[in-house]
């Protein structure tokens, strides 16, 4: 596993010479895999397109909004999120072992994967870079309040912070608290308030009337 001697000391591949080197190596690998008959490049195009169009945090937001308006759905979601999400026609099929964890006035949940980047793709899309990077992965389990402060978020001192480290094939979705002042709102209106970070536990839903 040596020989990758062109890596530089900084964390991102923003250096142009390295970028083009990586680009060339990726292209070379794709050519080899294609010539050996392992993959059809059109199938790779289709995978990328599927990720770009079919998954994303809007799926999770629809789940949260339904849980806010429908107590029976919320109960089912907390009991077995995979099964409950599958009953929503407008959300893509979901893999096994999805677990929804509920924020309450006494408990705030936060999701991390310290070992790699496990994340509930079907309901939140692909994870952002910060979720996969060392600062979040190292500190979320030891100093969650400090991490929340990096996001400009603070949780009352007497609220328990529960950090879920995704170390297996279970996947976690935070069910945030419904913002006050949204009585009578439709599911679609409520879904607009649900941010990606509120479903990871590093943020809260938008407040009604706040600039988007």
């Amino acid at each position, binding site marked *: 596993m*040596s020989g*990758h001697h062109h*890596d530089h*000391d900084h964390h*991102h*591949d923003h250096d142009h010479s390295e*970028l083009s080197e990586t*680009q*060339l*190596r*990726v*292209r*070379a*690998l*794709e050519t*080899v*895999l294609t*010539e*050996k*008959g*392992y*993959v*059809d490049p059109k*199938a*790779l195009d289709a*995978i990328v397109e599927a990720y*770009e169009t079919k998954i994303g945090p809007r799926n999770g937001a629809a789940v949260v909004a339904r849980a806010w308006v429908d107590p029976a759905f919320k109960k089912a979601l907390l009991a077995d999120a995979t099964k409950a999400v599958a009953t929503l026609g407008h959300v*893509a099929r979901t*893999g*096994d072992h999805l677990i929804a964890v509920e924020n309450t006035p006494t408990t705030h949940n936060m999701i991390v994967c*310290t*070992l*790699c980047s496990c994340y509930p*793709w*079907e309901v939140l*899309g*692909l994870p*952002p*870079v*910060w979720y996969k*990077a*060392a*600062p979040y*992965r190292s*500190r979320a*389990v030891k100093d969650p*309040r400090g991490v929340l402060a990096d*996001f400009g978020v603070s949780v009352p*001192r007497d*609220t*328990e*912070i*529960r*950090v*879920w*480290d*995704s*170390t*297996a*094939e279970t996947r976690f979705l935070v069910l945030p608290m419904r913002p006050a002042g949204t009585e009578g709102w439709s599911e679609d209106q409520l879904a607009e308030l649900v941010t990606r970070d509120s479903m990871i536990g590093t943020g809260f839903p938008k407040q009604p009337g706040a600039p988007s």
Partner: protein
Amino acid sequence: MNGVHDMGGMDGFGKVEAEPNEPMFHTRWESRVLAMVRAMGAAGAFNIDMSRFFRESLRPDVYLASSYYKKWFLGLEDMLIARGFIGKAEVEKGHASEPGKTLKRGKFTVDQVERIMVRGKFGRDAQAPAKFKAGDKVRARNIHPLTHTRLPRYVRGHVGVVERDHGVQVFPDSAANDAGENPQWLYTVVFDGTELWGPDSDASVKISIDAFEPYLEKA
């Protein structure tokens, strides 16, 4: 393995910096790497635990200096070479010089894309009754395997409480070594922050991991 990937509790990496309006991919090659990993995995060239192990096995300086998809690329290339699907000389030349090996599920084609957009199934039938139940006090074993494990270092030797069980699932420590699925009971085990980080740490914090039964002993 006690690799640099096992980052929970490490200091010195700085603040979490979110990128406003982050794109799904920063360059086109990132999307090609993601697609190649998904396609070759779906075709049966490797399982998810092997792919994690190869990324963890990157040299620590390379791991820390590489972007996320760069790690995916380096791990994929190393893994496909190690498993005999491609030759080192072929990737250096950028062309195949020999025909491909047989893939377990055959060539990855467009009609299979739908299938991979849902995660694989990891639940399996029980081989034995569960040793632990919700409420049991357990200690994360002080083990340091040289190969892949999903027991993070920061909990080893510490006592927590079983909160729920997730049935029996593929055991990554075996699957990563191509040693079969060896399914094991999986539990959420919750630890007090002060148990892990000492009496001066924030007492309002609890941390859980999902632990396979072989990682645990009665406390």
